[in-house]
């Protein structure tokens, strides 16, 4: 190809991900080498492969670069306030029990300002599929330290290095009661798609952590290269250990990344527990509604 300006589409066809994208909003705002879009590819494949009825699906995001997903999908979606994706999604699910409700948000949104909602939704076993894009930082606001930032990282709020211990999210949500917990990196595109499909088969609180680069703020400040360098690091340093004890899967800045399906168990979800309690205490008087009707 010559050194000229090219503006056409080479070999036009149909991208499978377009089925769930608002293509009129492309190109998106994510930086070069940012992998939030890559996670969306896996999510789209999971929806297509598991033949989910897109009309019975809702996607809820909080605020952040990852939160932007809600605005780019051609699905019923809601971009909530910061940290409140899970409570919004909980209300949506309780009022419309037949909906498949996905929460798609960032590590800061879900585990810092939204941390309480995260543990309590897991404890109550609310039937939500949570996809947490963990780029180890508050990206959208300029790269501040998040509860997930590994020790010794340089961030805009810790220019001399972080020193506080970070959350190990799979361990946290397992302890709180999640029925399905998996972690992949953005290098593991097909495994991630499979995990998302599996989560759709579960009833209860499912949590999938996706380790993803923020080349603009995290990688650059920590001299970890660009998006491609990070993907190569994921490829080299990830070890698949299904069923690994989650207490052993904490992350460091440049060390090994344990990935896989860590938890897959069954226990009654919130609505099942509510139904059985009310049937027991109220008997005939308990009338369940299929859907909440606002009049």
């Amino acid at each position: 190809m010559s050194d000229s300006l090219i503006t056409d589409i080479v070999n036009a066809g149909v991208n499978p991900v377009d089925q769930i994208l608002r293509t009129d909003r492309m190109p998106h705002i994510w930086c070069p080498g940012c992998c939030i879009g890559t996670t969306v590819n896996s999510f789209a494949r999971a929806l297509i492969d598991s033949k989910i009825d897109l009309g019975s699906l809702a996607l809820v995001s909080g605020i952040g670069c990852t939160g932007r997903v809600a605005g780019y999908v051609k699905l019923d979606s809601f971009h909530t306030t910061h940290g409140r994706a899970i409570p919004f999604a909980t209300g949506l699910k309780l009022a419309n029990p037949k909906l498949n409700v996905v929460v798609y948000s960032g590590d800061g949104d879900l585990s810092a300002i939204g941390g309480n909602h995260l543990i309590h939704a897991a404890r109550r076993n609310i039937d939500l599929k949570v996809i947490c894009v963990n780029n180890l930082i508050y990206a959208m606001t300029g790269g501040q330290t998040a509860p997930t930032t590994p020790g010794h990282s340089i961030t805009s709020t810790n220019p001399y290095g972080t020193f506080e211990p970070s959350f190990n999210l799979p361990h946290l949500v397992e302890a709180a009661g999640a029925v399905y917990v998996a972690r992949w990196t953005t290098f593991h595109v097909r495994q991630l798609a499979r995990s998302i499909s599996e989560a759709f088969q579960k009833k209860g609180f499912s949590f999938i952590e996706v380790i993803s680069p923020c080349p603009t703020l995290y990688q650059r400040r920590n001299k970890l290269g660009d998006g491609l360098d990070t993907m190569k690091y994921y490829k080299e340093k990830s070890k698949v250990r299904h069923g690994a004890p989650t207490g052993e899967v904490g992350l460091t800045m440049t060390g090994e990344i344990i990935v896989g399906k860590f938890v897959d168990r069954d226990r009654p979800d919130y609505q099942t527990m509510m139904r059985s309690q009310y049937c027991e205490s109220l008997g005939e008087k308990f009338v369940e509604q299929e859907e909440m009707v606002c009049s």
Partner: protein
Amino acid sequence: MAEGRVSIVVEHCKACGFCVEFCPTHVLELSSAFNSKGYHPPHAVHPERCSGCDLCGMYCPDFAIYATKVAPGKERDK
């Protein structure tokens, strides 16, 4: 003969290089040409090797590349 055909939405590419790096059969290279945003999008240097696996499509964060399987026996579009 190629089993797949790769399509590139040149204007959406941000030249991250993932598709080039992770294509199992090394079909792609970043071209020296620019798109209107100043990025170098990939082009197929070995289209005949494309299997249509769409791994490039799975990796692309910008939804700018994807591939389709070519029906066996059909001549690949030029």
